[in-house]
């Protein structure tokens, strides 16, 4: 009974948080949409880094593939958002699957290096194909049809935010289910002791490829959301810098926990945004200092710290 209550409660967190954010920041919905989209990428990154234990600096490859895929689909095929979303997801999944066939044969630093290399290859291909992608001027001119044929995309970003928040929520629910499933447990077992899983007859390679593809599909969805709501796709979406940013958000929030990814994206973007607003020239210093403080004092990330705090208040020993 309590378990049911808990899972219903957990499922309600994202909608409640979305409503609260929309009420607190009524005039910044385009920014909130950015947060929701970034949270979705960080969530997908958490599958690879947190649950599979594979450090990557190449997650932008899938995000960018989704963004360019959805943008080209909207420009040349059909400007309907939901099918575009699926196209973005498929684009991310395809890139992830193909690269995983190669990536999952390597480990550690080689793996990390390969993820960077793949991202840079994609970046250069997109940069060179100016006729199709616009190169570094970006791909623009995307005008989406109304969502579900009813809701128009407005410049306030209201629809953009709710659209992104609903997708984030659904994906989160799906992932909660998946990480608790036998598949999710096996993936974690592979992370903790791959050899042992192999001895027990588990297919390490297969599980990793499947997980990476799933993660790529979600990153692709996020890319598609970005393309559809911003209406411009730039090379930034395929950059190693972006990959590093989302990794920082994940580590800050707490890798290996779905909540960690969400919290990390929210807090990181809020700090960035408001620090830059208060002092547009020197804000990077503050952000750097805050990151150092979090890493020093909250090694398990913000979510880990929050949990420890709650446990202490309840008088329990830290988990």
């Amino acid at each position, binding site marked *: 009974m309590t378990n049911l209550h808990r899972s219903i409660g957990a499922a309600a967190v994202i909608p409640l948080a979305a409503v609260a954010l929309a009420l607190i920041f009524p*005039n910044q919905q385009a*920014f909130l949409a950015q947060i929701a989209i970034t949270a979705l990428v960080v969530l997908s990154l958490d599958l690879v880094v947190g649950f599979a234990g594979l450090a990557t600096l190449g997650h932008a490859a899938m995000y960018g593939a989704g963004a360019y895929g959805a943008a080209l689909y909207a420009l040349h095929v059909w400007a309907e958002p939901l099918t575009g979303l699926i196209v973005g997801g498929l684009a991310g999944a395809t890139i992830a699957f193909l690269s995983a066939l190669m990536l999952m044969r390597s480990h550690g630093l080689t793996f990390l290096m390969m993820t960077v290399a793949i991202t840079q290859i994609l970046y250069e291909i997109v940069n060179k194909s100016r006729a199709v992608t616009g190169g*570094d001027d*970006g791909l623009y001119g995307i005008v989406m049809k109304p969502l579900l044929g009813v809701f128009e995309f407005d410049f306030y970003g209201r629809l953009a935010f709710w659209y992104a928040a609903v997708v984030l929520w659904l994906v989160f629910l799906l992932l909660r289910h998946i990480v608790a499933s036998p598949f999710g447990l096996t993936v974690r077992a592979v992370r903790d002791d791959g050899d042992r899983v192999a001895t027990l007859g588990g297919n390490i390679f297969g599980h990793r490829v499947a997980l990476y593809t799933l993660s790529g599909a979600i990153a692709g969805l996020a890319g598609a959301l970005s393309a559809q709501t911003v*209406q411009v796709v730039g090379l930034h979406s395929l950059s190693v810098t972006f990959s590093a940013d989302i990794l920082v958000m994940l580590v800050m929030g707490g890798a290996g926990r779905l909540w960690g990814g969400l919290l990390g994206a929210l807090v990181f973007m809020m700090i960035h945004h408001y620090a830059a607003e208060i002092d*547009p020239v020197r804000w*990077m210093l503050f952000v750097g200092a805050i990151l150092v403080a979090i890493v020093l004092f909250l090694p398990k990330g913000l979510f880990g710290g929050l949990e420890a705090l709650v446990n202490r208040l309840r008088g329990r020993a830290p988990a």
Partner: protein
Amino acid sequence: MTTKRLLAATLVAALTCLPALAETVKVGVVGPFSGPFSGSFGEPFRQGIETYVAMNGQPADGIEVEFIYRDLQSPDPGRARALAQELVARDGVQYLAGFVFTPNAIAAAGISAQAKIPTVIFNASASAVVSQSPYYVRTSNTLPQVSVPTAQNALDKGYTTVVTAVSDYGPGVDAETSFVKAFTEGGGEVLESIRMPLSTTDFGPYLQSIQLKKPDALFVFLPYGPPTFSFVNAYRDNGLDDAGIAFVGTSETQEVDLQSLGEAAIGLETGYFYSAAHESAENDAFKAKLAELYPDAEPNPATVSAFDGTHALYEMIRATGGEADPDGAIAAIAGASWESPRGPISIDPKTRDIVQNVYIRVVEQEENGRLVNREIKTFEAQPDYGAAQ
């Protein structure tokens, strides 16, 4: 009784007058105020704005202008759109300004078009930018605008063969395309077009292969800073100047880099829209005020673009009396012309893009050792040649 009533009436009158007295027009300025591009764009933007304000005060009696600066370090369309949206919806800006990178300017165009926010582009130089919103105006330049007269000058000087070498990114490709078009249409021959990766630091191999082709001239486009320094030095070290291969550039010798280029720069010829050595009362006044406010600042093309952009904002604010009237504001600036520190400029009434002189300049050393871009030839009232493409 009467005095009381009079007092009350005065008080009411005073109160109703108060908002009119302190009417504030907000302008959101988006640009790289921190990070690697702050030196070449963010700081010059702020200096150009502050210098204009210091020289001209407020646009009209009872209208105050407040500039709200927002940092956008790199091309990031999502963040550009979010910043523009927030400035409009939350901070209530009537105007937007700034924008260095093309994708950012294009992402904010949706906001400008839908919310009807007149926006002055201080840099983003792809030809397509201004057409993305009916409320966009540009006070910088485009690459075709400066490359076409530069090609014309190369033809005038009797060069018949060139090799082009540009950095492989948007502006570089724009410069190459328009230079090659103008040069071949004028009867010249382009032997080879080289696109060098942005991260290139060793230009020796490129320059050696160019030397073997023995063109009359080498057309170059490079971004700000280190690549320019190493390219110019490699040009000298490999002896291309002695081999008679003339250097034809555009923004390479601009003021932000000029002193650091050192003696290697002397004699280089470029075609661009602003030289700090431009001789006019307007430029002298601008430089004097800039030096007074920011003793260490160089007057850059980016500073002048922001300075003129602020003039455009003032014109629009004056014409609309500080009220939100986007169509009135755009009508007031489209077709306007004025004397800028760079020379006479105007805003094309149809495209809302800048029309300006392009100067052929040669780098000279003054007696005090400082390098200057000496203007030697003027191509008057050049439009954006890329707009029709």
